[in-house]
């Protein structure tokens, strides 16, 4: 049986009166590809932030490979081998594509090896022609791809992607799908997405969030046909 890489127990995050995450019990196995869906404000991003240390949960625990990492700083969790693409792009705008990716590689490798790895990822993501361009001058899709490169170059074993395909062209999405499949060879991947077509093309197990809590967790086909899910999400009449 595959190792559990990520597990949360009763994860709860409150902002004043708003319960953004409500008693979430989540379990992810090594090599798994999981999709998180749910309407706007369902608490998907908040869940990611609690897992990566950007937020400290009000209650509950986060375990990574069996270790309790609740309350750890983001850099401590990242150092374990956890990568996240945040919902709003988090990149270094005044630095080049190469510098952005090199910085991520440098964390785990020496200077020259980091260069080698950065070049390799740049090739794989077809970023070669813009490798020396500053991020601030790139289109949205390119920036998303660079952020994915930042995550991938660190060889993580757990990857969280918050709306990686948002605002991308169909061609960009195809390339993104390919990259995600490559990532799953060495990492467990969790993806938050709204694009149902994209989810159908990529997912097996889907977890549905609703008002901070897990509504249902099942195979993608059964989730999509679940009347409850359709009511809160697909029908958008909740």
């Amino acid at each position: 049986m595959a190792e559990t890489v990520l597990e949360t127990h009763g994860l709860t995050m409150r902002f004043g009166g708003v319960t953004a995450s409500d008693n979430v019990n989540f379990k992810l196995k090594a090599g798994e590809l999981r999709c998180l869906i749910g309407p706007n404000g369902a608490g998907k991003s908040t869940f990611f932030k609690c897992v990566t240390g950007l937020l400290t949960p009000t209650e509950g625990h986060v375990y990574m490979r069996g270790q309790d990492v609740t309350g750890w700083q983001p850099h401590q969790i990242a150092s374990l081998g956890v990568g996240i693409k945040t919902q709003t792009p988090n990149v270094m705008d005044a630095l080049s594509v190469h510098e952005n990716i090199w910085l991520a590689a440098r964390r785990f490798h020496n200077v020259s090896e980091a260069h080698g790895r950065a070049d390799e990822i740049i090739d794989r993501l077809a970023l070669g022609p813009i490798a020396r361009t500053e991020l601030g001058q790139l289109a949205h899709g390119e920036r998303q791809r660079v952020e994915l490169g930042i995550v991938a170059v660190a060889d993580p074993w757990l990857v969280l992607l918050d709306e990686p395909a948002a605002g991308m062209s169909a061609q960009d999405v195809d390339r993104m799908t390919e990259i995600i499949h490559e990532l799953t060879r060495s990492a467990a991947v969790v993806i938050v997405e709204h694009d149902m077509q994209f989810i159908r093309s990529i997912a097996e197990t889907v977890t549905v969030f609703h008002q901070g809590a897990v509504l249902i967790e099942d195979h993608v086909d059964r989730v999509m046909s679940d009347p409850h899910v359709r009511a809160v999400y697909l029908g958008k009449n909740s």
Partner: protein
Amino acid sequence: MGRSASQDVLITLVVSAVLIWVMPLLISTYTLTVLVIYGMLGLSLGLIWGFGGILCFGQAAFFGLGAYTYAIAAINIGESTVPMILAVLVPAVFATLLGAMMFYGRLTDVYLGVITLVVTLILFKFVNSTAGPQYVIGKARLGGFNGIPGFQTLNVPGDPDAYVWGDPFFYVCAVALVIVFLLVTWLLRSSFGRIAVGIRENEVRMGLMGYDVAARKTVLFAVGAAIAGLAGALFANWGEIVTPNLFSLGQSAEIIIWCIVGGLGTRLGPIVGAAGLAYLKFMLGQQSMVDNTLITGLILVLFVLFLPRGLVPAIASVLSSIFGRTKRRPNASRTRRARHG
């Protein structure tokens, strides 16, 4: 930085050798010395603000701390070598403690500004209030608003009677600035420097990459304080007296203005801004027609409005357009971001 490291060092050495040779023909070495010292002080803030995104409103605190440490140690020890070293170490240690408190406390930029400002104010008030005879450190009386005069000035290491003053002191200061400049160049080319720039650009992302942002900012902050402390010690030697005015908010504000006018995010800009504005102030000080601070304020406003990236980047882009080189496209967002935080 497109040039190779050895090219960079070579250009620095040639240009500074020429300047050290030519400038004394134009301006007295006494005045030049203080311009060089201010240049070093400007560089200290230019490093942490322009390349680390740490806007410190209290860089004068480290400058003053360096000067006072030197004066107090020189009175007690009587030979200048150890006091010079202490004048670098004391501000660095102080900045490490202050920085760790601020950066591990995850204060936002605004609070960082407020705290550094308040610390400067407290030091200023405290040193001002030490006029009484009970305020002594070893043999040195702190002297309150009168300051501390009459300490051993710089001597040839090991020989307390061989004073270094006048022209030789200018050359010592100039060489010290060149060495500090080269060390800063090396630091910025190293992984540490590149990571610092990454943190300036996006702290959250650098944290998510696994970098301990607080630790790195603390170290950079301390390096800046060490440079400011060295400048302070040299200033004490130049003035042969230290007074609480070294800690004044006016001094801190001036350092910030030097950086903005000279050009943030460059190594040269803060030095040029410091020396240029200090020289202007010196010239204006010789007449009484217009008020000094008014002119400084006017210059700041004009720069913010018309040359927001500062003098050095503007000259660099003019030069490169004349010589038809393809330069990196200017990026306004970077400068703006660096300036506000």
